[in-house]
């Protein structure tokens, strides 16, 4: 017995009931629903692993470089500075009003757009692990989300600096960012399940998603302000899910509590995404291993 150890609980009184793995096809919706719920529950239980994997993704990307993950901060800062210079000199825009808006918009949009594009590959990239060990699929979705939240966190100093320079202070309205960001996190997991599974099955979807996101960038008020839109069209803005989902986080940070209709739209679209995602998870969770 030398050279080996028991990593499990000691045998006897305190040992937990043995885990049971049961697989059968043609389950009822309720049974599959329970399995999907279990996937999420067990996945959340692995939060330490998810956090670690997300961190490692960032660290390894920059391992060996002097600045490490702060390259994220620096490259964003350079981009914002260049944009500010460009707009001030070329277009004679009033930077004081515009640059905080632009910086915040671009950083938040980059988060959303990278999240969506990485959601497409969150299962296919984990192919090796999925094929060699049974793990909750939540693990792969969570890892992608953590990674992107950490990238966003590295860009926060840039926003803070811009706000300081232009003395923008969100005030109490800024507190609305908390529920809004929680909504983003839930949506992030939902999008990862939805696109992760869908893109594993249909390899044409990632390019489609990429072009949809690009269109979303131009049709949404990200580099242009909503107020530049003619009053005739402005009431239609909340139809655009990209706008309302962005605005619930951006508005409070700029000191404007989003209008109820914006909230309604953002929550409505989120509910739709979560609903679709859950249906796909219930229906296709057991098939993903065959698709990747």
């Amino acid at each position, binding site marked *: *017995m*030398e*050279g*080996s*150890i*028991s*990593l*499990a609980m000691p045998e006897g009184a305190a040992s937990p009931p*043995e*885990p*049971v*793995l*049961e*697989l*059968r*096809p043609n389950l009822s919706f309720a049974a599959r629903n329970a399995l999907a719920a279990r996937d999420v529950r067990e996945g959340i*239980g*692995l939060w*330490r*692993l998810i956090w*670690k*994997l997300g961190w*490692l993704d960032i660290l*390894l990307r920059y*391992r060996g470089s002097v600045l490490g993950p702060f390259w994220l901060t620096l490259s964003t800062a350079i981009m914002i500075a260049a944009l500010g210079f460009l707009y001030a000199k070329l277009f004679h825009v009033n930077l004081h009003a515009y640059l905080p808006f632009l910086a915040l918009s671009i950083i938040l949009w980059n988060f959303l757009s990278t999240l969506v594009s990485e959601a497409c590959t969150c299962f296919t990239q984990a192919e*090796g*692990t*999925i*094929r*060699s*060990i*049974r*793990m909750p699929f939540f693990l792969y979705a969570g890892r992608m989300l953590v990674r992107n939240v950490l990238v966003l966190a590295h860009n926060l100093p840039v926003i803070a600096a811009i706000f300081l320079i232009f003395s923008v202070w969100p005030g109490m309205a800024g507190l609305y960012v908390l529920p809004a960001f929680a909504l983003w996190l839930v949506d992030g997991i939902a999008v990862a399940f939805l696109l992760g599974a869908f893109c594993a*099955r*249909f*390899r*044409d*979807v990632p390019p*489609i998603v990429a072009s949809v996101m690009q269109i979303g960038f131009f049709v949404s008020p990200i580099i242009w302000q909503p107020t530049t839109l003619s009053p005739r069209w402005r009431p239609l803005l909340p139809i655009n899910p990209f706008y309302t989902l962005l605005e619930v986080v951006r508005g409070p940070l700029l000191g404007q509590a989003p209008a109820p209709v914006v909230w309604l739209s953002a929550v409505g679209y989120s509910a739709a995404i979560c609903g679709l995602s859950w249906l796909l998870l219930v229906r296709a969770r*057991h*098939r993903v*291993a*065959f*698709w990747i």
Partner: protein
Amino acid sequence: MASISVRGIAVDFPLYHGSSRSLKKTVLAAASGRVGKDRQHRVVVQALRDIGFELRSGDRLGLVGGNGAGKTTLLRVLAGIYEPVLGHVRIEGRLTALLDPNLGMNPDLTGRENILLRGLYGGLSAEATKRLEENVQAFSELGDFVDLPVRLYSSGMMVRLGFALATAMRPQVLLMDEWFLAGDAAFMEKARARLEDMVRGAEILVLSSHVIEVMRAWCTRVIWLDQGQARADGPAEQVLEAYLGYKLPPLPPLEAAALPGAEALSGAAAHR
């Protein structure tokens, strides 16, 4: 008590060709109302057909068969990775599947970081992870290399680390794919005792291998898989003889009794 119950399972691999996999084809098929037909006529590889067996504590099952016979697929079903399209699988007990030698191993991380990561994958407590670290470090003899990135390791060190990690757990149900017995000779010598210890500690073993001597020594029962179906199922000697097509020489009684599998594993080492 660990147990495995497999009843009449079938596993199909859908073949998604470049074209049939695309959204275009599915959308077009849906538009022309051929989805149902398409689904029935979908090209699938029948990886497993009508496989059934019951294993209880103490059972040692071997899987033999040519390449593509379904051995690894069956192990993956038992590990809960592929879910069958027909039949029923029920497994009781803590399970470890040794399917991928480099499971979760990241070449850019140091040896120690990889060990900690594996502890997290296994859901181990901080204390158990500490023990895992000590155990793996002692066995793999990495010395100071444990704090260097794995990609700097020699291939021998890499194998030692992977093996030490995989065999540190003491599962009730152990699933082992054939790669595990394919180490280099000098390493197998060292690994033998540890592997045997793990096998002996497991209540149920399911092993896939091409090495007949290992099968003979370790398995009490063998299933011969052929094109996804069980061609024979029974006592190890009997099925192996049918599979090989010749009578096996009797095992040397002394060695077989003293160290099951020892001779088989060090067989390669003897050639040195």
